[in-house]
């Protein structure tokens, strides 16, 4: 070995060893620094800031994950898939999700005569809640009230503006204004301020409809004058903030007041009872003439009937699970299906391999979808049965049996739709979903008996 080559090797070797050791040392330093929870208050947040980017300066990790709600990913039965869309003047979106009306044309029959039979795409992440609602074809076939914005936009600041600081007054004002006028007053989809108090970061309910709805529901349990923002536990709030929107609702009266029909309870049949008393209808079915209801997306109600709710699990535990950022645990604000994040969403409690947990969830969903298809076929059959009586005007020729048959369509359809519109493909409460689908099939069976009698009557009169 020549002398110069030896020097070269020694210096080179020492340099590599030093680089590796220093890299390790710096890494150890970084890991130790992580354990010190550092929080920088960059901006002073106020109760009038609805721009999430400003909140994101103080809470960059939460904001980063919030932005990821723009991701589009499928699960076996849910989630959204990106489809290219040629932007038009009416609809400038270049990406949309799958059209559910094409995937299952039975939906068009169930919703005949209603705006949903024109356009019903798979719901996408929170990032799209406002734009997808502005540009849906439904806006062109019907006139919507401002009420829709309660759940499709960050409205807290608007409530305060319209109500001079009183959110309930602002809520009432907003509901009365037509959608196309008021939509220009909102700037963001659901944002930090809708669930968090800017001075303490604690969770809060900002939607008057939920405040009123949960008060009515708690009254059924004997709790009087329930004030959700004062009386709910921390863990309850981790479900209630989601329940502000992921619920069954209707627009009550001429003022279009957003109302959650919980005064008789949260179950599908209890809600149906409520509607019976309220005699509310959403539209008249185009193929049968029956006054019917559209169920919305009752995740909160259905989840409450399941074993996870019973065990004290909150929506956030599975859909926004804690994740580690260094030594800190923060709530992941990328709200998504737990099936896309099984390690953090499920394995925190279930000490079982990921593949097994996925198989368990999908088995529940497979069975649910099979039963759902049976119930759907029954409902569509029944709608076909009722078609032949469509032109009978009950105000001119009253017929008690036909009125009853049409009411049974309303009931069967609402019960089916309640399960169909619920965003978990049966997972939130499998047995409850099955029970409600069973009830729906039973209503169809009762209805078909009446239809058989009606047919006999008509033959004899002819």
């Amino acid at each position, binding site marked *: 070995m020549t002398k110069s080559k030896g020097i070269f090797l020694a210096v080179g070797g020492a340099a590599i060893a030093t680089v590796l050791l220093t890299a390790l040392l710096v890494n*150890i330093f970084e890991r130790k620094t992580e354990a010190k929870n550092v929080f920088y208050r960059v901006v002073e947040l106020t109760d009038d800031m609805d721009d999430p980017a400003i909140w994101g300066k103080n809470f960059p990790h939460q904001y980063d994950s919030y932005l990821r709600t723009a991701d589009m990913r499928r699960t076996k039965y849910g989630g959204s898939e990106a489809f290219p869309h040629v932007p038009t003047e009416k609809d400038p979106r270049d990406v949309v999700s799958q059209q559910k009306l094409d995937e299952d044309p039975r939906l068009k029959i169930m919703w005949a005569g209603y705006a949903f039979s024109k356009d019903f795409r798979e719901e996408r992440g929170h990032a799209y809640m406002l734009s997808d609602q502005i540009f849906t074809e439904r806006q062109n076939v019907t006139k919507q009230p401002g009420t829709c914005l309660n759940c499709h936009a960050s409205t807290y600041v608007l409530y305060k503006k319209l109500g001079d600081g009183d959110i309930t007054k602002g809520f009432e004002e907003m509901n009365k204004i037509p959608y196309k006028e008021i939509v220009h007053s909102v700037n963001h989809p659901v944002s930090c301020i809708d669930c968090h108090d800017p001075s303490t970061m604690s969770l809060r309910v900002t939607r008057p409809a939920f405040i009123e709805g949960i008060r009515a529901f708690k009254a059924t349990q004997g709790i009087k004058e329930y004030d959700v923002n004062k009386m709910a536990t921390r863990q309850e709030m981790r479900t209630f903030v989601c329940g502000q929107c992921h619920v069954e609702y209707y627009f009550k009266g001429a003022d279009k007041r957003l109302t959650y029909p919980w005064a008789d309870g949260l179950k599908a049949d209890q809600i149906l009872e409520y509607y019976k008393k309220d005699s509310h209808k959403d539209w008249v079915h185009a193929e049968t003439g029956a006054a019917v209801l559209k169920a919305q997306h009752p995740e909160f109600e259905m989840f409450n009937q399941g074993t996870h709710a019973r065990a004290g699990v909150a929506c956030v535990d599975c859909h926004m699970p804690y994740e*580690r950022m260094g*030594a800190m645990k923060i709530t992941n604000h990328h709200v998504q299906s737990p099936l896309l994040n099984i*390690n953090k969403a499920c394995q925190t409690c279930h000490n079982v391999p990921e593949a097994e947990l996925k198989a368990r969830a999908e088995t529940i969903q497979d069975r649910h979808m099979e039963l759902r298809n049976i119930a759907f076929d029954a409902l569509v059959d029944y709608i076909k049965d009722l078609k032949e009586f469509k032109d009978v005007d009950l105000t001119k020729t009253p017929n008690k049996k036909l009125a009853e048959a049409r009411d049974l369509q309303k009931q069967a359809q609402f019960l089916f739709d309640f399960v169909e519109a619920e965003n978990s493909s049966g997972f939130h409460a499998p047995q409850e979903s099955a029970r409600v689908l069973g009830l729906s099939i039973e209503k169809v069976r009762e209805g078909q008996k009446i239809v058989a009698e009606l047919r006999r009557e008509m033959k004899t009169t002819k």
Partner: protein
Amino acid sequence: MSKLNIIFLILFGVVLGLGCYSFIYAKGYSYMSDDPKACVNCHIMNENMDSWIKGTHHHVAKCNDCHLPHNIVGKYAVKALNGFNHSAAFTLQNFPDPIRIREHSLKVVKSSCLSCHQPMVQAMNHGGKNINEETNCLHCHRNVGHVK
């Protein structure tokens, strides 16, 4: 001594010094002990430590009592192997979180249960259909050590 050798020695000294400093800075020496505090050098274990303090076994068993074999060679062999895997995982950040126990480590834990409780439970592993299948104490007694 030739100039070359002096350069060699200086370089060796620098690397050794840097290595020693890193070792001490990382509290490397603490890993030779049985002190549970060594395990929370890495903050991933904070919750496990917290729940162990409140757990039913903390009077009688520390981390090493359950997670390492009860013989001196096995103990330090597994300690070295796990230590290497843990520090590599912590440095590279490529582990699932919540962390999952590996098959091998689970075996060690199960045999640790038996090293204290064998006289009480020895009848349980006999006479079953699958005589070769080990009874998993942790299937039911998940939270005796720590919940997480």
